[in-house]
């Protein structure tokens, strides 16, 4: 990469983002990172995702961290499993690195792709730049996407994403693994207790439902709070829901 073509401010921002990627812990910091990159590549909307797959594409529902994408679009995208139709995701598995949407879209002319592109434009996602990596060893693929007006993106932003992608990939893989570790570390009983807390049950009520002592329920709650680094059980439920920890 010829870094001399970038302005001094862009270079400083790129280095700051690399530093932030190295120290990134948790989804909140990842959202902050998306915000910083969005400013650098002129993206109005930002989102990133990670999922397992192979050369044929994703093999499971990806985990998504939203920076500023329209929630309604993300909801539709998830519910209809549009990641299986998304040309950008497909392209990232075949040719990991940076890509400009308009260039990638030219390669996908089928009806499914056209319908997907048309639908995304309805939400203002007209153009964009994405960067990501696919690690064949772990099967983990990451993608960082910045979208906005159609003509807002060119080769310059693509080069910035090309520089940042390896660092962002490592950061997102780390955040993902931390989430998985927390999920694995919640026992079945703890998940059960959490589900009843979510339903608004008191410790006493949970003890009656699960046929255990109230003291044991309190023990499980404290353990959950400790594992999730939560200040109270309401906070723990919020974290668990946010990280999708209550699904088996």
């Amino acid at each position, binding site marked *: *990469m010829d*870094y*001399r073509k970038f302005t*001094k401010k862009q*270079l*400083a*921002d*790129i*280095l*700051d983002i*690399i*530093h*932030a990627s*190295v*120290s990134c812990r948790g989804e909140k910091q990842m959202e902050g990172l998306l915000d910083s990159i969005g400013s650098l590549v002129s993206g109005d909307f930002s989102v990133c995702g990670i999922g397992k797959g192979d050369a044929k594409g994703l093999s499971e529902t990806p985990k998504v961290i939203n920076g500023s994408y329209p929630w309604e679009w993300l909801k539709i995208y998830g519910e209809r499993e549009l990641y299986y139709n998304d040309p950008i995701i497909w392209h990232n598995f075949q040719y990991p690195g940076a890509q400009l949407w308009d260039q990638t879209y030219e390669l996908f002319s089928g009806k499914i792709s056209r319908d997907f592109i048309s639908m995304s434009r309805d939400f203002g996602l007209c153009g964009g730049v994405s960067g990501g990596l696919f690690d064949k060893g772990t099967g983990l693929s990451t993608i960082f996407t910045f979208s906005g007006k159609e003509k807002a993106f060119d080769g310059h932003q693509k080069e910035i994403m090309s*520089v940042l992608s*390896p660092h962002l990939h490592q950061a997102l893989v780390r955040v993902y693994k931390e989430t998985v570790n927390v999920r694995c570390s919640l026992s079945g009983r703890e998940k059960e207790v959490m589900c009843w807390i979510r339903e608004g049950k008191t410790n006493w009520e949970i003890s009656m439902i699960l046929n255990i002592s109230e003291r044991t329920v309190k023990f499980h709650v404290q353990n959950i709070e400790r594992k999730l680094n939560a200040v109270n059980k309401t906070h723990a439920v919020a974290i668990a829901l946010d990280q999708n920890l209550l699904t088996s």
Partner: protein
Amino acid sequence: MVSSKEFSKKELVSILEIIEAAQNCVTPGEVSSLLLRTKDLVFADYSVCGMGRLSGGEVKDILAVVNGNYPTEWLDVYFTEGLYRYDPVVRYHSSFSPTQSWSDIYTMYDDVEARFVVSNAWDFGIRHGISSSIFMPGLENISIFAFAARNDSFRGHHKKILDSIALHMNYALMRVTGGFPRPVKSPDAIEDTLK
């Protein structure tokens, strides 16, 4: 966190080039090249890096050494005699990670053994310097990246440059050494592990 705004454009270009090169390092020779490029960036004359295993707060085993351009005669003496056990720079980094100038480190370890190492290094032109280290908690390993010079031209600015690069160089060193290298004791064995 280092603010990148205070670096010149030329420095930023060099730092990013070194980080990119560090990501692609797969051989000791490439790590050696990284050390030489970083040496030029911080206006040092010599550079070397190594990885050791900590035990009881001290470096007990040397796991790997990659030389930039340290005098090999000095390195032979240093490792054969186990001088890293008394070297104030190694002793400092066994407890502290941040980049530090040696003039500050020397004031913290002013005993007979430390003075012996420093005065011998002086004869080889290793007089002033800055160094950075990365501690790997799970492995109890540390990597030290040392940049030395005959004249003391090191400033806080150079420390910040090194702070920006050290972690990436450590990834490169870990990759080259296989991440979990077996302990070796002699310089010959160290060289063998790197061939």
